[in-house]
């Protein structure tokens, strides 16, 4: 039982990566297909590079604009990651024993503070950026967010550790 569920998790993640890769390829193809129809003498653009060197025909440019507007394949692959991660979370969390639901809340709380990544970027801006008004405002917001998130990270993992340390088996 244990082993089987671990495998499920593994498949989910592997599947996720695979899907993301395939979506990326599909988007690439979508971007290339109309180009192939219009252009005849121009050399075929290299599939591996996302930035084509060749001047683009109108149809491709229009499509690219459309994709940009919708945030392009970037947004779709992020959405795919999001949806698949929800599924991974769903299956993993149903396997959490009800006795550990409190540590589950504490640890999910701690890991949701990974939002600190965004705060780090804001707080760690280049100094010449900080000297502008908006840059300074952003840096301060980032700094405050780093404080809040790190309270959560240190506090959350520590309190989880304290809780888990108390769960003991019957002495035999």
């Amino acid at each position, binding site marked *: 039982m244990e082993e089987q569920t671990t495998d499920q998790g593994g498949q989910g*993640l592997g599947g996720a990566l695979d899907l993301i890769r395939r979506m990326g390829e599909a988007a690439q193809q979508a971007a290339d297909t109309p180009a192939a129809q219009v252009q005849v003498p121009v050399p075929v653009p290299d599939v591996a590079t996302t930035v084509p060197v060749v001047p683009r025909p109108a149809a491709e440019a229009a499509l690219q604009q459309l994709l940009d507007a919708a945030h392009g394949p970037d947004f779709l692959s992020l959405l795919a990651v999001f949806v698949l991660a929800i599924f991974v979370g769903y299956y993993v969390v149903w396997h959490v024993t009800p006795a550990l639901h409190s540590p589950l809340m*504490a640890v999910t709380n701690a890991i949701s503070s990974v939002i600190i990544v965004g705060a780090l970027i804001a707080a760690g801006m280049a100094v010449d950026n900080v000297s502008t008004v908006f840059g300074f405002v952003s840096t301060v917001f980032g700094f405050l967010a780093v404080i809040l998130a790190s309270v959560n990270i240190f506090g959350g993992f520590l309190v989880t550790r304290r809780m888990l340390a108390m769960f003991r*088996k019957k002495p035999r």
Partner: protein
Amino acid sequence: MDAFTSIMYLIAAICFIMALRGLSSPETARRGNFYGIAGMAIAILTTMFGPQVHNWWWILGGLAIGGAIGFVVAQRIQMTALPQLVAAFHSLVGLAAVFVALAAFYSPEAFGLLIPGTNEIRGVSLIEMSIGAAVGAYTFTGSVIAWGKLQGVISGKPLVFPFQHFVNLGIGLVLILLVVFFSIWEPGILLWLIIILALALGVLMIVPIGGADMPVVISMLNSYSGWAAAGIGFTLHNPLLIITGALVGSSGAILSYIMCKGMNRSFFNVILGGFGGEAAAGQAALADRTVKQGSAEDAAFLMSNASSVIIVPGYGMAVAQAQHALREMADLLKKQGVKVSYAIHPVAGRMPGHMNVLLAEANVPYDEVFELEDINREFAQADVAFVIGANDVTNPAAKTDSSSPIYGMPVLDVEKAKTVLFVKRSLGSGYAGVDNPLFYRDNTMMLFADAKKMVEDIVKAME
């Protein structure tokens, strides 16, 4: 994002999944927590050494201040105050999300959010940003209110006012409109307006929810803190934030679902609030019925002569801090050859798994503690059911009386035990405001006292 950063973020995400996976049993849980810490360390270090961070001073300062506060708080907190602590922590995630969204709005170039060659932020980024900020703001004030209710700073009673739901619905619709306007015209004032409205909505939505529904509220806010992180992840094009946010979001959603099922109420019924407000209305008429009252000595005698005792703890045990005395009592019983087990209802306490943590704190081995569906059949073979600080979760009316507000809620079948010992301060009804017919049964003996004092007296009588 360069390849190295992407791969490190992926490893961090896998660590977080392993952290949740470890919680499937207490043996693997500690290693799971270690995975979580490792994942977080990888995420932070990768970002700090990454191309988007140029200056460490603010970061190190923030980490030191926040880390110190977090460390001290987590080290000092009493296990009974855990629900408040978790609510407070959720509020911090919410507020952090708001701050990150604002930082991204004012310095989009640092986050790579500009349309190449222009000074404009992409429309989609604006939508993602404002949704992340709104969910964060809502989580912040909602969690602060939940914290107040759990801490006792704000009354645990539901606060209801006329047209409440229409006001909330109105704010919600205005919020959606503002997000649309903001994505088109991009003025900062709209983002602030969105944040302020979401802050207000957080207060208004949680205020009408009663204290004992807090397990659902905390789980829900847990879920929202995840969605807020995911929203920011979309804004920053960061898959790690998106994955983690989705994990946390679905975890909180599952917990809310389990809690709602434990009360046989729909999620909306809980969220719309007002439940348990009108307690003790028709109480006087019922209170005339006779109850059997016992003393600590009676209880000690009954339990010492039993062959199996099932203890049913509830929130009252947490309030009285009776878990240590309770474990002492159980130890004495076990020494006399009595089989002791504990039965936990899913919504006992103020957060999911609250009772399990308190019992674990008192050194009760976790393999003596059982969930409702695992132990309910055993009450029929038990000699004594010892109910301490629980009420509604043992109410047989939930099975028989279709007019009862708690009808259909899964309850512990304590009345099937030969004798029910019910530790309670008075005959008052529980949170749901429903009288418990269990009090008046022939096989029930009421022990009127503070939970901790009664258990200590029982221990003395046994010795």
